[in-house]
């Protein structure tokens, strides 16, 4: 009797000792799910306008608080990441920017994990933080009037 030793869904989230692309893979999945769920909520949110201006305004007032804006900041961070990493993947999954076939020598290095796509990955993370900072400025400083 054998033991089925499948990694299952647990394998998607394992990050300890893994490569940088695996981190991006996890973030891409996570951001896709979170942004997808947000879109559903967003449809409910915007549909309140059908009940008239009163309802819409009171909902907007209700959502103007640090908790809701923290949620929006997380959604902004994840959607920016998902979009930018998506661009990296469009290139990489066409076989572009992942190096060129060559005979291996020692020490062995898999060049698809060292090519331009990896630099793009770091750039994606940097740009995501910069744009999330911009979202923070609008959500907290402009909209909620937070002062430091």
């Amino acid at each position, binding site marked *: 009797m054998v033991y089925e030793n*499948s990694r299952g869904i647990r394998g998607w989230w394992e990050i300890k000792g893994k*490569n940088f692309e695996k981190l991006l893979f996890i973030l891409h999945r996570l951001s896709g799910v979170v942004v997808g769920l947000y879109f559903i909520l967003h449809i409910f949110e915007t549909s309140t306008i059908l009940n008239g201006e009163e309802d819409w305004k009171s909902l907007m007032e209700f959502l103007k608080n640090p908790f809701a804006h923290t949620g929006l900041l997380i959604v902004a961070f994840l959607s920016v990441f998902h979009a930018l990493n998506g661009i990296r993947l469009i290139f990489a999954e*066409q*076989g*572009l920017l992942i190096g060129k076939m060559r005979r291996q020598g020692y020490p062995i290095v898999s060049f698809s994990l060292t090519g331009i796509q990896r630099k793009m990955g770091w750039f994606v993370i940097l740009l995501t933080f910069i744009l999330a900072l911009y979202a923070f400025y609008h959500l907290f400083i402009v909209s909620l009037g937070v002062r430091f």
Partner: protein
Amino acid sequence: MNLKFRILRYDPEEKRRYNQEYAVPFRKNMTILDALLYIKENLDHSLSFRYACQAGLCGSCGMIINGKENLACQTKIEEVGKIIELKPLHNFPVIKDLVVDFEAMFAKHSSIRPYIWREQEKFDSEYLQTPEELERFIMVASCINCGLCYSSCPVTGTDKLYLGPHALAQCYRYIMDTRDKDKKKRLDIIDSPHGIWRCHFAGECSEVCPKGVDPAYSIQQLKGFALLRRNELKRISVAPLKKEKRKFE
């Protein structure tokens, strides 16, 4: 100095998984396989593991060493520390202790037809190939079927039908081989939801491959061929038989 080995064992008769610890005396330049052989000879004859060449060529001794897929014969104790955790490869059924069943992986390998494929085969002469043409796939041809990539792939863990990095890399190897003729037919086999499109470029296969086959590279190239670069396949010339005339002769 003694090393501490914690091995995840499986007893198929009692269907029981358990950790067992062993103390192994350290020797300079000792590999994980050396330590396993020491345990087998001196401490516990019932421990099962698979090995053959002891030189990183047969691909038999793949296992998870301190959380990462590696070949036991190629991993030195100095690289991993004094406390060593060994587990059988993931995504393969475990037969006993560290021995896993490769059948599913080899069946997928067979499904991509891992041999030169021409409509009319001629056996009276060899096919010609230039050294440059060989360089186009030599990296992928060094695969030793060890299954480390198959174990590390997060997608293989959730989709049993997924062909997996090993078979897909080998498909790329034959597509790039000028002796192979029907590249489009090959592409049709893997251009499916459980073929190349299931890969999401997590890159773990390339990270663990002990031979630098870089399956992630091959799979992304195959996607490129399937989507936008089908015509590029036409440019991969077909090697003639030795008897036929060829420019480089």
